[in-house]
C-alpha cells in the first residue's frame, strides 16, 4: 500500500512537471530543438545566422562586395524582340545623373510594346509604385497621403513626358522620389514605363 502511494505520488509529480513544461509558451523562443546539427547549416548561408562569423565584419555571413566591384546585372541590357532579333542597349548608362532632359530625348524603350509586356509592367507597377502613385497613377496611393507631393501622371505637366524620362526617374529619382535602381532591374523599369505611359493617357 505504501509502495503504491509512493508510485502514485511520483506519477503525480511527474505529470505536473510535464504539464508545466509543455504549457510554457514564450514567443521569443523557438521551443525544444533535437539534433540541431541537422537543422543549422555548417556552411555559411545567406539570411541565416545561427552563430557568429569570426571572419566577416559584424559577425555576419554576408559581406559587402570588394570596393570597385561592377554589378554585372546593370549591363544586362540585351532584349529579345518579337522577331527573335536582339537589341543591344547600353546607351542609357552614358546619360549622366543630372541630365533628365537628355534622357527623355535620347533613351527609347528597348522592349517593344505588346499587351503581355504591358500586363507585366502593370504587375511590377503594383509591386513597386502603386502605394505612392496610386492604382490609376493619380498620385493618390495610401503612402502618398503621408509622403506628399506625388504627382498625377495625367496632369498637364506630365502627360506628354517621354518614356526615357520615366526610365530616368525610376533609376535616379526626381524631386522627392528617391532612386529605385536597387529594387527594380533595368528590364523591369522599361516594362513599368510601358504601363506608366498607359496611365499618362488618364482615365
Amino acid at each position, binding site marked *: 500500500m505504501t509502495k503504491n502511494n509512493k508510485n502514485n505520488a511520483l506519477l503525480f509529480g511527474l505529470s505536473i512537471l510535464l*504539464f508545466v513544461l509543455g504549457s510554457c509558451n514564450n514567443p521569443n523562443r523557438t*521551443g525544444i530543438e533535437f539534433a540541431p546539427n541537422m*537543422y543549422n547549416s555548417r556552411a555559411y548561408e545567406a*539570411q541565416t*545566422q545561427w552563430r557568429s562569423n569570426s571572419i566577416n565584419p559584424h559577425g555576419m555571413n554576408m559581406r559587402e562586395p570588394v570596393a570597385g566591384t561592377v554589378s554585372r546585372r546593370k549591363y544586362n541590357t540585351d532584349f529579345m524582340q518579337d522577331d527573335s532579333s536582339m537589341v543591344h542597349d547600353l546607351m542609357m548608362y552614358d546619360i549622366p545623373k543630372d541630365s533628365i532632359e537628355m534622357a527623355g530625348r535620347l533613351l527609347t524603350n528597348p522592349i517593344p510594346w505588346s499587351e503581355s509586356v504591358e500586363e507585366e509592367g502593370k504587375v511590377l507597377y503594383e509591386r513597386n509604385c502603386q502605394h505612392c502613385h496610386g492604382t490609376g497613377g493619380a498620385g493618390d496611393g495610401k503612402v502618398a497621403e503621408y*509622403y506628399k507631393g506625388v504627382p498625377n501622371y495625367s496632369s*498637364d505637366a506630365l502627360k506628354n513626358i517621354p518614356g526615357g524620362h520615366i526610365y530616368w526617374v525610376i533609376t535616379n529619382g526626381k524631386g522627392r522620389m528617391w532612386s529605385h535602381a*536597387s*529594387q527594380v532591374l533595368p528590364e523591369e523599369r522599361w516594362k513599368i514605363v510601358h504601363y506608366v505611359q498607359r496611365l499618362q493617357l488618364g482615365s
Partner: protein
Amino acid sequence: MFKAISKQFLLLLFLTTSLSYSFAQDASADGDVATGEKLFKNNCAQCHATGDAVVVGPGLKGIEERRDYAWLKKWINNPAAVIASGDKYAVDLYEKYNKTQMTAFQSFGDPEIKSILAYVKSANEAAAAAPAGEVAGANDSGTQEAGGGKFFNIVMVSLLVIMVLVLFALIAVLGLLNKLSNKNADAGPEKSFVENLKNIFATAIGNKTIRNAIIWLFLLLGSKATFDGLYGIGVHQGYAPTQPIAFSHKLHAGEMEINCAYCHTGVYKGKQAGIPSSNICMNCHNTIKRESPEIQKIYTAIENDQPVEWVRVHNLPDLAYFNHSQHTNVAGLDCENCHGQINKMEVVEQRHSLTMGWCIDCHRQTDVNSKGNAYYDALLEAHNNVSGDPMKVEDIGGLECARCHY
C-alpha cells in the same frame, strides 16, 4: 491751398488703392471656380494646400497679395527660368523649400491660371466662413474618445468589485449551510471556516475514488502535454521574436498597402525573399516620421555603417531545400498561403507549422499552375494520357524525397 492739395492727394490715394485692389482682384475674378478646382486637384494639390499649410511647397492662401499676377504666370510656366534669372523672391523660395523645384506647367495660359487663383480664393473664403463649428466638432470628438477609454476602465473595475462581492456571498452561504448541517447532526462546538475547509479536503483525499480520479486526470493531461511537446520539437509554430526595431507589418503591408515585394525584393526572383536594406526604408522615411525613436535606430545604423540585426522568424531546417521563386513566381501562390495574414500582424509570428507533413499536404492538394508555362506542356500531356484528374504537384514528383532533401 494746403487743404486742396491734401484733398487731391487723398483722392489720388483712394483711386490708386481701389485701382490696384481691383487689378489684384482681376486675376481671380476672371477665372471660373469649377474649372479651377479641377485643375488644382489634378495639378497642384499634390504639393500645395489652398490654406496656410505647407505640404511640399507653400500654402497658397493670400498668394495674390504676396505676388503680382505677371510674376505668378512667369513662375508657373517656367520656375527654373525665374530662379536662374536671379529673382530674389524666387531664389529665397527655392532655398527655403529644400531646393525642391516646382514642376513647370508650360501649357497653362491665362484662363487656366486665373481659374486656379479663383478656386484658391473661393476655397479660402469658404474656409473662413465656417471655422468655428468645425473646431468645436473636432474638440467634441476628442473628449469623447478619451471618455470612451475611461468608461471601459470603470466597467472593468465595477465588474471586478461585483465578482469579489459574489465570492464573499458564496463563502458566507457555504459557512451557513455547514453550520446548519452541523447543528442538525450534533450540536457540537462551532468550527471556523478554515477548519471546515480542511475537513472537506481531508474527506476528499481520503476517498479512494476521488483520489484516483484526480491522479488519472493529471496523468492523462500530463501525457497529452508530453506527446504534444514531443511533436513540437523542432517546430517553431507561434514563434514571434521581439525585433530590434518595432516594425509593424500591420501598418506597412496592411494599412499602407505596400506590396510585400517592394521591400522583400527577392521573393519573385530568388531562393530567399530577403530582408530590405536600409535604403529601401529611406525611400519613405527620408520624410515620414523621421523623429520617431524607432526610425532613428535606422538612421543610427546607417551613420555607423552597422547592420540592423533582425531576428529571422521563418526558418526551415538545413536538411530541406526551399525556393521562394518556384512557389511565388511559377506556382503563383500568395505570401499569405504559408506566412498567414502578415498584413494583420503587429509582430510577425510563424502561424503555420512548416513541418514536412504540412508541405506534403499542400503538394497533394494543389494543382500545378501550368497556364502559360511551356515547361509543363509535355508533363501535362503525359499526365492527361493516363488520368482524368487535374495534375497535382504530387503527380510530377512533388513527394519525391530528393526533391527537397539532397
